């Protein structure tokens, strides 16, 4: 480990420790209202109290997220390839895609809830919508940016349209699809959590909302930490997968 790396690690560890120590100190000294800012020790204890229900909620959220994720990846890639590879489609539809992509999806959420009611269905639908658009836009860009020479080479060697898609286009956009998948998971999870907070009966979003309403600060912090950790773990796993699959790119 180089000298600089050592300093970096020390700085990171020291900052985290200092932060927690200061936080605990400030809370114990009574400088902040424990109703709003609980001490780390209180949060740690709260883990035990809500452990069961929090994990159940997290599991519920992750299940809905998984379904939404699969849907948004499948549709995002399919439509992305279709629109991106046909120049006419891409030119005509581009502004529509960009417009809908840039629209805050939360504006349609109340409407979705009115139609689908509370519970699982709106969470999956909204989560899918949330993840679909970033993936779609990314894949369209990726398909559009495929090196023209590769397509010319394939045609020169007599590749049929089907072979062009299968042997050139799809392998060429693997990095883009992976990037989209990496992006999509966060968006899907975000969408599901939002629905759970807005109109949920189960799931982490609902749990956190109830805890907030009940002014249960330590439990809320514990739940927040739990979801954050889960999210970071998932993204890290995807990043590792990404690295493994990209060995040819260098």
């Amino acid at each position, binding site marked *: 480990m180089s000298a600089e790396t050592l300093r970096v690690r020390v*700085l990171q560890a020291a900052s985290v420790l200092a932060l927690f120590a200061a936080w605990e100190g400030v809370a114990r000294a009574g400088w902040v209202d424990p109703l709003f800012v609980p001490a780390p020790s209180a949060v740690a204890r709260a883990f035990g109290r809500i452990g069961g229900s929090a994990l159940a909620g997290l599991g519920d959220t992750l299940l809905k997220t998984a379904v939404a994720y699969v849907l948004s990846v499948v549709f995002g890639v399919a439509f992305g390839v279709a629109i991106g590879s046909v120049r006419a489609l891409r030119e005509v539809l581009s502004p529509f895609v960009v417009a809908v992509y840039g*629209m805050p999806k939360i*504006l349609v959420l109340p409407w979705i809830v009115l139609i689908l009611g509370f519970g699982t269905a709106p969470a999956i639908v909204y989560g899918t919508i949330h993840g679909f658009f970033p993936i779609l836009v990314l894949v369209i860009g990726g398909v559009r940016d495929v090196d023209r020479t590769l397509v010319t080479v394939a045609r020169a060697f007599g590749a049929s349209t089907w072979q062009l898609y299968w042997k050139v286009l799809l392998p060429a956009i693997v990095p883009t699809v992976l990037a989209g998948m990496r992006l999509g998971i966060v968006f899907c999870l975000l969408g599901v*959590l939002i629905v759970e907070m807005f109109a949920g009966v189960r799931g982490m979003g609902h749990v*956190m909302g109830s805890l907030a309403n009940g002014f249960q600060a330590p439990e809320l912090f514990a739940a*927040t930490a739990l*979801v*954050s950790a889960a999210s970071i773990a998932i993204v890290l796993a995807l990043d590792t997968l990404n690295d493994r699959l990209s060995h040819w790119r260098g």
Partner: protein
Amino acid sequence: MRVLALRAAILAAFLLAWEGTARAANPLLYVPPSAALPALARLLTLDSYPDLVPSLLLTLREIAIAYGLAIAAGLGCGAALGLNRVIGRAYAPILGALYAVPAVVWYPSLMLFFGLDAASKIAFGFLLGFFPITLAVLAGIRQVNPHMLAVARAFGARPPTVFVKVMIPAMMFTLVGGLRTGLALSVIGVIVGEVLGSKSGMGSLINHAYGLFRTADYVALVLVTLALVVGSDAIASAVEGRAQRWSE
């Protein structure tokens, strides 16, 4: 020209399809365009929601404050991370990890701390806008060609001069992109915060209409909010264009 005509045709077909299916299925729930337009008129004449203007202004104010704070903190943190190698290497990964967390998980804590007033929306908008700006400043600094800096120093330029005259123009493109994304996210943060629970602002009006099943009014409110979003992005885009021309 043909492309424009095709787009117009697609738009028209979409609106027609909407009109048709909405009327056939449940016009109250699905709000065909023919119901949405009168509702929009009622809204803009302050008929359906007399406090439209104060709500709109409040939302705009929340966005402005949230974004302003995000810029200040983002530029500062980004510069600190970018200019000092050790600090950058230490904290950038932590920032990246936090960015991987869906921002809405912070919102219940913010609501608990700040209540349902504007403060929690501003805080949330700030949080959302802060990350892309910081990361853009960091990325911008990192991608500055070290040769350019070496040349500047070789000509005797001091660090502040190097920063202003070489670094800032070199990272302008990345920086402005980050600022634009930051604005879009701050806007979304404020709106999400309002919809998820607030007593005032556009989001609360939307919630109100939704709760009373006033779907047509709800659609009208959404359209007005959309105009706000599009407008802010258009302004950002114009500023981005200006900045790019200036930096060339």
